[in-house]
């Protein structure tokens, strides 16, 4: 009897165990299985070979994994949403700089550039299960205009539905192209049921409740561990804006620094690296020790640059600016900034990877003798024989160099050291005022006041994409706005230059944009109001042993808008 009871009990336990095992599936495997079934079903009807889904892509970053706010632009959640991750941005830009449909499944700009007709996917869902509706679209534009005060929507007149899956946005000015190519690629739909409580307030910026991450992008946030700096995401198959989603789940791990990223890549701990406008430092590429790691090299669209103080005695003189460019050791600057992976820039400032690049402008080259000759002829002579040149009127000449206060301060300081030494070689006394670079506030107030002879700055890849480096040279504010607006760091007061920059940013077509940016490059070459310091490569390394279908988008790396639909298992 006792033995029979024992056998019965064991049998019950075993059954229970099997039943338990059957139900114990992780969200990852559930998602993967679900997607694979979909792929197989699709294959039956289309006859194509099934795509081998990536079960879990592990992305390494150095950006914090702490806040998860759909509107936010800080932390990795905000930054990876630039590439259509948990947020569905209106459109995206392909490698040629052409605008492609994303949330707007199709779009058309009217001839006068004031009206945008678009269609949208009625099958899209929010990550909390709610359906995306027209109300969300209507709410988002009102929110961006009235609450977030987005400058793109100053002239917004109306947002109206024109059908079950179509709508029309009307502006009073030809702002459609400017908005689409400017911020629409990094801006997307907001869920009305989450964000309507913030209308008219600023509280949305710091909102961190779990529903702050609700989006209608191809992925949803499943969980995160702030202490471990890891977050987990799963695909939402319905939100297949760009085709079948082939990466079923994504893990994002934050590492202390880029050295740790390189070690993790070599060890196979992560599959690729992503950080907005922060490619792996070129000096770390030597650390790749595994042949399966591809450095992910591409031409960078951003650059380090200098701006001359055009309202001060030295900077306002073209001959002085020309002499400075002749005195600079361009090869050293390119090496110091790009770690040997770069080229000496041309006079148009923006690199060849930018839309509207104007080929054929002169390339800079160091010529110390020529620099000395130009300075002599322009009257900058060493009057008191102390080895240092004076202004043409005989007064003391001290050139103030101001490196931009930023995370990359060390590199800017190094560039300043090179410039000071190069200018010293032609008898120009240059210096850095320590008091100006103690904080971002002090630095910016000096820059806005034009308190510099040479400012060393930086254009990120994101800014370079449409806004371009020329935005940093602007002196006049956007027409209709105040002089106190931020980012007015330039001192070039030329009316045509300023109006062309703003016309470029508000261009109503690609042709107008290209025409403006090419004029600006020619102007930069003709007047030398500033120049790029180097055109470099950038590195977003990734592993090639497990997956295929990587597409290394220049300046952005392999983690881009198309990754979620192109990557497959080998």
């Amino acid at each position, binding site marked *: 009897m006792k033995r029979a009871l024992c056998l019965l009990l064991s049998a019950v336990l075993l059954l229970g165990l099997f039943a338990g095992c059957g139900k114990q599936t992780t969200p990852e495997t559930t998602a993967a299985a679900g997607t694979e079934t979909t792929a197989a079903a699709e294959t039956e009807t289309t006859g194509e070979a099934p795509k081998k889904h990536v079960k879990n892509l592990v992305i390494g970053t150095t950006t914090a994994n702490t806040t998860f706010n759909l509107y936010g632009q800080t932390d990795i959640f905000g930054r990876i949403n630039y590439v259509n991750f948990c947020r569905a941005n209106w459109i995206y830009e392909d490698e040629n700089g052409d605008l492609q449909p994303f949330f707007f499944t199709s779009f058309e700009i009217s001839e006068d550039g004031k009206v945008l007709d678009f269609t949208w996917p009625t099958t899209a869902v929010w990550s909390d299960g709610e359906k995306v509706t027209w109300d969300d679209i209507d709410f988002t534009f009102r929110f961006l205009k009235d609450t977030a005060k987005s400058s793109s929507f100053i002239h917004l007149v109306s947002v109206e539905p024109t059908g079950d899956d179509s709508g029309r946005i009307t502006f009073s000015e030809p702002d459609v192209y400017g908005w689409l190519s400017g911020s629409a690629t990094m801006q997307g739909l907001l869920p009305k049921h989450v964000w309507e409580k913030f209308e008219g307030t600023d509280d949305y910026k710091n909102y961190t409740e779990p529903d702050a991450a609700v989006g209608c992008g191809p992925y949803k946030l499943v969980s995160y561990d702030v202490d471990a700096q890891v977050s987990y995401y799963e695909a939402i198959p319905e939100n297949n804006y760009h085709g079948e989603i082939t990466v079923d789940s994504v893990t994002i791990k934050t590492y202390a620094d880029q050295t740790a990223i390189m070690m993790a890549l070599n060890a196979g701990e992560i599959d690729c690296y992503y950080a907005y406008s922060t490619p792996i430092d070129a000096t770390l590429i*030597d650390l790749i020790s595994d042949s399966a790691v591809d450095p992910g090299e591409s031409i960078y669209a951003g650059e380090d640059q200098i701006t001359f103080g055009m309202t001060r005695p030295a900077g306002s003189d073209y001959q002085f600016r020309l002499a400075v460019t002749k005195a600079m050791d361009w090869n050293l600057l390119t090496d110091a900034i790009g770690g040997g992976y770069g080229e000496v820039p041309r006079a148009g400032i923006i690199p060849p990877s930018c839309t509207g690049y104007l080929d054929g402008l002169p390339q800079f080259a160091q010529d110390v003798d020529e620099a000395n000759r130009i300075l002599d002829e322009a009257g900058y002579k060493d009057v008191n024989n102390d080895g240092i040149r004076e202004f043409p009127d005989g007064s003391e000449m001290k050139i103030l160099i101001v490196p931009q206060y930023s995370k990359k301060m060390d590199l800017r300081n190094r560039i300043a*050291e090179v410039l*000071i*030494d190069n200018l010293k070689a032609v008898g120009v006394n240059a210096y850095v005022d*320590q008091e100006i670079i103690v904080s971002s506030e002090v630095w910016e107030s000096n820059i806005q006041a034009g308190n510099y002879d040479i400012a060393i700055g930086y254009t990120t890849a994101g800014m370079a994409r449409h806004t371009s480096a020329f935005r940093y040279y602007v002196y006049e504010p956007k027409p209709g706005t105040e002089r106190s607006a931020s980012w007015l760091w330039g001192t070039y007061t030329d009316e045509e230059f300023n109006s062309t920059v703003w016309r470029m940013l508000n261009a109503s077509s690609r042709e107008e944009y290209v025409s403006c940016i090419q004029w600006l490059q020619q102007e930069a070459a003709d007047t030398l109001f500033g120049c790029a310091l180097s055109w470099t490569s950038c590195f977003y390394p990734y592993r090639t042993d497990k997956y295929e279908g990587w597409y290394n988008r220049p300046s952005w790396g392999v983690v881009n808008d198309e990754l979620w639909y192109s990557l497959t298992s080998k």
Partner: protein
Amino acid sequence: MKKRKKVNIPVLAGSLIIGFFVIIAIIAPAIVPYDPSATSALTYGKPSPEHLLGTNDVGQDIFSELIYGTRISMVIGIFAAVVVTCVGTLLALLSAWYGGVVDKLITGLTNLAMAVPGLALTTLLVCYLSPGILSIVVAISITAWTGTTRVLRSQILALKEEPFVKIEKAIGQRDIVIMGKHLLSNLKDIILSRGAMAVSSAMMTEASLSFLGLGAFGEKSWGAILHYAFFRNGVVRGLYWWYLPPILCTSLAVLGFMLVGYYGQQKR
């Protein structure tokens, strides 16, 4: 027969080390092969006859940087130590001699200052004061006087009870004379030892601050060399000729002052 004086080997070794660095600091401009700020196209150069310790990320000669770095480190170390020792000694004299409220006030201040992490406070002060040699000296001086004050105060309290001090006091000698003539003269060994220890401490603090990037722009100190070696990934890339020399120099100089400071106050 004349008794042979025993040589204090650690102090001698420490003095030789200090002497070496002091001489290097003084004659630095005469022995550097290059201007340490001069850049060149030879970046990340390995050690060679032209560049004994190679070149850095902007082609500057690391050996020349190192030689000039001796000046910065020694100047900051010695200057800060003098200030720290003077302040510490003065406060100890006032505290121990006058007692009462003065003693309570200074002892309380000392305890309070000792409770705050030194390097953290110094870092904050340097950030507030803006980077530079003077800021570093001021910041170190504000935070590093406590040890000297505490040690000297206890010694002075003991000396106060000595008959020769009591006699001076009884005959109405002025306080300042007793302090200068009897107390300080009996404490000179300890003060010098504390001073030597303060130099090593200040040098370490300076190296730490410069390593954290809180040095002045373009400053060629040992900590700054190390800072850029780390920042440009010299360590992970195995460019030992860039990061090892400043570490060795800092360690050796600190060792020299520690030997003099520690063994100098021990009875021979």
